[in-house]
């Protein structure tokens, strides 16, 4: 169950220009939090900016019961947050929302709602399961925590695909390598300053067409997620994506943060709350809009 408490920042570090890793002792047991869940807190103390900001839990240290978020300064709230120092306090609400489902995926799909050919998945060789973790920019945040959990599971082949603007914005490279030698890291930059020159989804597309992936976890800009969804539909593969929407309450009460998901009938939809039914959704449940 989510809690609401004042905590101190134990560490704040600018790990790349404009990107910060902020650690704190969360008011909940990190062991009970799921990758993909988020915390919700205010970056300042005045009425402007007014609302709390949601940040995925990016990293946990279970021994110390510490958690960290990884964030990019994009506006006023994150700019205020970046000015905070060790021991400054935050009123943290969390862990909130529904996180990633650990593999194997596929179970959450009701056949009637799943993409055609989903049944194939059930007959996949049980081991090893080939997982692609696809991050765009700061989208690596919830996925890193996911990797912390995945690395201890048996029989997985994990490929991590990260795309960013440029070398500097390829975050957590060494940390991912340190997680496990089994994890294969593929990098892409928009400007070609490192790794593959182009969008990360092109690397994913190549892997998929070579039939090297059984399921996908993704987080990043909406356009990237839409492409991931299109690719997974094409190859009839399951996946989960973490979405972002402007939030009000963060706890499911205000119905502000909704996205369209598939309804019970053909072509019908319903509005689901990103803060409650999400932020992680099965990729094929989301109705993508232009």
């Amino acid at each position: 169950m989510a809690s609401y408490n004042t905590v101190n920042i134990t560490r704040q570090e600018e790990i790349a220009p404009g990107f910060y890793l902020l650690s704190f002792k969360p008011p909940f047991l990190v062991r009970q939090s799921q990758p993909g869940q988020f915390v919700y807190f205010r970056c300042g103390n005045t009425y402007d900016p007014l609302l709390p900001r949601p940040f995925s839990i990016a990293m946990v240290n279970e021994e110390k019961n510490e958690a960290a978020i990884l964030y990019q300064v994009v506006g006023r709230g994150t700019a205020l947050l970046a000015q905070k120092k060790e021991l400054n306090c935050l009123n943290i609400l969390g862990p909130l929302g529904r996180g990633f489902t650990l593999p194997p995926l596929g179970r959450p799909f009701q056949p009637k709602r799943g993409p055609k050919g989903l049944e194939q998945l059930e007959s996949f060789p049980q081991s090893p399961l080939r997982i692609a973790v696809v991050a765009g920019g700061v989208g690596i945040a919830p996925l890193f925590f996911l990797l912390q959990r995945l690395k201890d599971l048996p029989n997985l082949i994990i490929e991590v695909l990260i795309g960013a603007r440029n070398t500097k914005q390829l975050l957590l490279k060494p940390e991912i390598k340190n997680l496990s030698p089994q994890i294969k890291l593929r990098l892409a930059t928009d400007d070609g300053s490192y790794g593959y020159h182009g969008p990360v989804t092109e690397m994913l597309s190549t892997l998929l067409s070579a039939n090297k992936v059984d399921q996908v976890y993704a987080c990043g800009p909406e356009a990237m997620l839409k492409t991931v969804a299109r690719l997974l539909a094409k190859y009839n593969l399951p996946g989960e994506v973490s979405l972002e929407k402007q939030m009000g309450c963060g706890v499911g009460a205000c119905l502000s943060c909704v996205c369209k998901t598939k309804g019970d009938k053909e072509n019908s939809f319903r509005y689901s709350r990103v803060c409650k039914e999400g932020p992680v959704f099965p990729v094929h449940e989301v109705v993508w809009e232009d």
Partner: protein
Amino acid sequence: MVAIDLTVEIAGLKLKNPVITASGTFGFGQEYAPYVDLNRLGAITVKGLTLLPHPGNPPPRLVETPAGILNAIGLQNPGVDYFAAIILPYLSQFNVPVIVNMAGETVEEYAALAAKLSKLNNIAALEVNISCPNVKKGGLQFGSDPAAAAEVTRAVKNNTCLPVIVKLSPNVTRIETVAQVVAQAGADALSLINTVLGIAIDLKKRRPILGNIFGGLSGPAIKPIALRAVWQVFKEVSLPIIGMGGIFTAQDALEFIMAGAKAVAVGTANFINPRATIDILEGIENYLRENKIERLSDLVGTAHCK
């Protein structure tokens, strides 16, 4: 230490204290139950309910503005039957009066909804949201036309024995006039105010941000407007007032009470501090104690005295 009397009577309804949740900002109570002991609240006003389930507006539904938020949820709700079957039984576990906020697009809808709700147990009062588009009259809000506001009020009154609280919109030339008219039509109490109409533009897309284009402004930004409405209505209409609009602290709540509100509702503040209602309640109690005021009711409207 003297005992402080925080009780409030509104339209025959006795509340143990004046702190109520504002409709639409507290869901159906359930979401905030982990943070707030619901039994301590003066009352819970639930999300606006309609006769049939309502999908709500297309997103984006919320945008932050300076010291405020604009929302255009569009009355997404599961409908009265689901409410009766699932939500009301849940809320009935608690020892807290439930005020049902009701919405509709025709007078008949309001009437039918009032009739249905009045058959249920464990509802303390109805709060009639008249800031809804009147589809029969070209989409203008009921609340912005005194005659339509009165008609809705009468329709609800004729179909219920529950206390009827009418929730007024600030988007009118004279809110006192609307208040007077609904008072004459039988309203037992007034909620002031609903959100202020606004829009926000996305500079990059060069389009309104909200899916619905228009949204309702709430939060600290509108507090001066809400206080003004309470002040004006208190001066001219004798019905009890539930004040709301930007109440974030006990100080804010006390200002509304001095301006004439008998009770207060906390809306947007819940999003910023899920324990806002309790903090406000405790702050009001401390203020009364420190200022040796034994009854909250002694403070109501005091700012009007010279």
